[in-house]
């Protein structure tokens, strides 16, 4: 295994009528481009509604995993390989909410050409007012 990844999530505001049934966090890669999509979940974690009731959702909750050496992020013409942390929120009302944070899995053997970077996004979710997810890519090989 290669570098380790630490990610955290929190839910800012929740409308009173919304009940969260579950939450899933995945560290995964997928392909984009002309070909059919390939994807693979490298790390998966699920919190049930009972487990979520014990958590303060407005606070950050993190998880860690070791990333594999490959596939490295790739920007080609026909094939593009993307890594991301995907957070899927199951609500009792409406559709699932998905927040996705891309990051680059790179090799630190070639400095300047392939560098890791931090990516933080805020995702707006219809049912939940102010849901956000944040992921942090590693700076070096562990």
């Amino acid at each position: 295994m290669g570098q380790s990844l630490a990610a955290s999530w929190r839910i800012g505001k929740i409308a009173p009528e919304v009940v969260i049934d579950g939450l899933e966090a995945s560290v995964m890669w997928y392909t984009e481009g002309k070909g059919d999509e390939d994807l693979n979940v490298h790390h998966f974690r699920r919190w049930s509604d009972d487990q979520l009731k014990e958590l303060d959702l407005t606070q950050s909750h993190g998880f860690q995993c070791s990333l594999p050496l490959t596939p490295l992020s790739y920007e080609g013409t026909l094939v593009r390989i993307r890594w991301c942390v995907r957070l899927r929120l199951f609500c009792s009302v409406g559709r699932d909410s998905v927040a996705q944070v891309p990051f680059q899995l790179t090799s630190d053997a070639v400095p300047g050409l392939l560098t890791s970077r931090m990516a933080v996004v805020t995702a707006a979710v219809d049912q939940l007012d102010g849901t956000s997810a944040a992921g942090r890519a590693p700076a070096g090989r562990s």
Partner: protein
Amino acid sequence: MRLPKPWTKKRGSRLLGGAFSGAIGEAMLLAGLFLLGVFTSALVLFQRFAAASLGASGVTDRFVSDEASSSTLGFWIVMVLSLAMLALGGGGIVYRLIRIGASDERRLAMAGRGVVGDQTAGGESARPSSSDLAPMPTVPQGRGLTDSPGVHQSYRLASDGSNQARIVAASASLSLLWNATWFVLLAVVVSGFLNDRPRWVLTFLLFPFAGIGWWAFRYFLESLKKTAGVGATIVEISDHPLEPGEPYTLFISQSGKLNLRRLRIELVCDEESTYRQGTDLRIDRHRAYSHILHTQRDLTIDPHHPWEQELGFSLPADAMHSFQSAHNAVCWKITVSGDARPWPSFCQSFPVVVHPPAGPPIRHPR
């Protein structure tokens, strides 16, 4: 309310109806198939085993004909169809039920690795799959590429097979099968004449069939001559798998009896995408990287003195590693191509595996 039109062409990723109504429709179709399978199999089994003892089969006669149900062959045909409907309907319903309430990520995580409870982390987590635990998932192992030791360098690379070899194999199969059939028909005609029962239609048909057989045999001989004339291409490499930035030595040998207008040796990287277009499965390729290692013009090769050359090269420092997934790939290879006289041009590809820089240590079998 807009009614869905089943004959409208679906464009892009838009859905014609709701996902829920689609799932309901699919479940109804699968349930109908399953129930029809149950009904048909029960009917046939009842007809075969129970109706005779009861002495009344009027109900089953209305649905299953005597020919279909009474004979052994008919019984098994109907039974196989019923079981197929049962499997298709039942399996489909189970598959749909598994999909309900599970995200794509969860299904992928569950597939082949098992979801385990993780009390300390306050959640349910999944163990990495065995493929993820491999040193470099999605990078081809390339074990077969280092099976053959080389004479001049460490490894002799295997060709991925040329079109010319496939053409020879296909033309040989066609020629042999067609001409074997022709000789069987000839034997039938001759036996007819010997027994004073000549088969005139078959006799006249033998002439055009003989023409086709002669054409197939000539095509096979020509393909074989072309392949044999070009001769073998040998590529050996000093180390394998490759790593970006590292220097390597290549040994190339081209044998045969031919005059070449041009011989070119290239290091290339191709992107390959497989996708569905309607009912067709298509493969698209794009040359992402090409570096000419050697080119030579007006070259004469005779069978006793093959052309040989030793080259040094290195991959770019930022080269992408080899990648292979179900529908997408990044492939590195060394190609040897030539414009030959009198034979047709040829191009041989020798795949190599490229690891990411500073990957796990490479085991050297030699």
